[in-house]
């Protein structure tokens, strides 16, 4: 079970990373959900044993390489929300999809706020409110994304 789930996890993370860095037109780019963050959240809620914090940290590191001004920025933000998701995974898992989406919305806002603060401290301030738009689209896409990720994964791991 572990090998199987881990390869599936890595595959999902790779696809999510590709979706994250895929070039998109500007107007669409603002709405692009943080696919990798959503995937990591899904796996930490539904299979906290298969990776959890380590996945969060390394996924964040990949994001840093692709789009971070400072190495460790996304890693910190993503390990923070991964930690919360792993800790509360039983409570989150038992909620219906709509409530899960609300929790994901809160987690994404926390993630973006952490990034925003680190951006400010390290001298790369981006104060445009557009940077928070993706939290909303991420929450909206959560129910279908969770359904896709759970498809073929059998059931609880």
């Amino acid at each position, binding site marked *: 079970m*572990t090998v199987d789930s*881990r390869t599936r996890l*890595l595959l999902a993370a790779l696809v999510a*990373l*590709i979706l994250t*860095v*895929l*070039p998109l037109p*500007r107007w669409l*780019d*603002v709405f692009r959900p943080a696919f990798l963050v959503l995937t990591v959240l899904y796996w930490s809620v539904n299979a*906290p*044993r*298969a*990776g*959890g*914090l*380590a*996945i*969060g*940290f*390394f996924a*964040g*590191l*990949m994001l840093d*390489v*692709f*789009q971070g*001004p*400072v*190495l*460790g*920025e996304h*890693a*910190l933000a993503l*390990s*923070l929300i991964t*930690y919360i998701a*792993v*800790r509360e*995974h*039983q409570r989150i898992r038992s909620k219906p999809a709509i409530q899960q989406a609300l929790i994901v919305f809160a987690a994404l806002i926390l993630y973006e706020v952490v990034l925003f603060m*680190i951006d400010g401290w*390290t*001298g*790369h*301030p*981006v104060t*445009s409110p*557009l*940077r928070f738009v993706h939290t909303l689209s991420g929450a909206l896409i959560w129910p279908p994304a969770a359904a896709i990720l759970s498809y073929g994964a059998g059931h609880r791991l």
Partner: protein
Amino acid sequence: MAAFGTGAARPLSGRGGSPGFRFTLYALLSLIMMYLDQRAHYLEQVRYVLQAAAYPLQLALNSPPAAWRWLQESFRSREALQAENARLRSSARDLQLRAMRYEALARENGELRGLREALPPVADRWLAAEIVNIQLSTLRQRLLLNRGAANGVFKGQAVLDDKGLIGQTTHVGPWSAEVILITDPEHAVPVLVERTGLRTIAVGAGDSTSLALPYLPGNADIRSGDLLVSSGLGGVFPEGYPVARVTEVHRDAVQPLAQVRAAPLAHVDSDSEVMLVWFRADHPAAPAPSASLGGELRSGNPAMQPQPAAPKSHAPTQSAPAAPAAPGSAPHSEPAPHGEPAPHGEPAPRSEPAPRSEPAPHEPASPLPAQETASAPSKAPPASARAIETAPNGTAARGQDPQ
């Protein structure tokens, strides 16, 4: 990714203090990494390796559009190719003529400036690079190029296209390099208003079609249609390359500063190839060599940082020797290794309005008489500006920053 194993082998991580402990560990690791990357720049090697690891993925992402372009290219009709060939030939002829005139003007300018020799071009070497990936969001405007340290690319290198300045490299991997565009909100480029010699800083506005000039006083002599060229301060870009054209000047009586917008001349959206440039260090128009450049983009807004000193005055050293060799050593005597056109093909519009008395195409706002009168006094300010630029550091820094 060996950590996956340790993560999975642990007992259920939802129980006990394990996740909290590990979170603390990872958070500390992230903080240390951020500190090292931000303050001490120790992580360039790590970034180098990570960027090399990420490159195949980025290349794969670029392959569908690249394949599409290749297909389009290979199925083009003979007529289309012939038409393009004819167009290119005529434009090459045009450029050659302009280059010839430019050489004469450069020589004359060199003599007028007391250098008594025709200067070689500022650019020493050119390298064409393909754009592999492009990010044009409000927050980040970056390119990924398919050239890296293996090709001699270095951090903080100027990137141009045939129309103007594009940006500079920020992170260099072994086979790839990331470029920050001049329109990125974190980027600032020192510029000079070509018409008046007024120097200021153009900051990216987070939009691929505009730059902001936030440090101009309300009474600054600038108007829509003015050409902005790089001023050579700042130590990255050479002097005199076209950067942008002013599109909008907004003066408000209650605001001490004018709100000025400019449109960059480079077409990042439509380019698929850009040029990396190596500059001749001893050229007067070359950017000042500065060791402190490495951290410029990393710590704070570059616009707020002290700019490196102006290029040193070369007049005493260069005027004495090599004076008789002047006519023979035309600017093209130094061969560009890649057979690229001379780098000064583009600044020609700068000298365009002076010899011809017809209105220049890029100053539509000014009527003909105003153009005539403006072109005469415009000779004086650049000369004085240059005097400031070649003066010792103190005056240059004061003259440069209007704040």
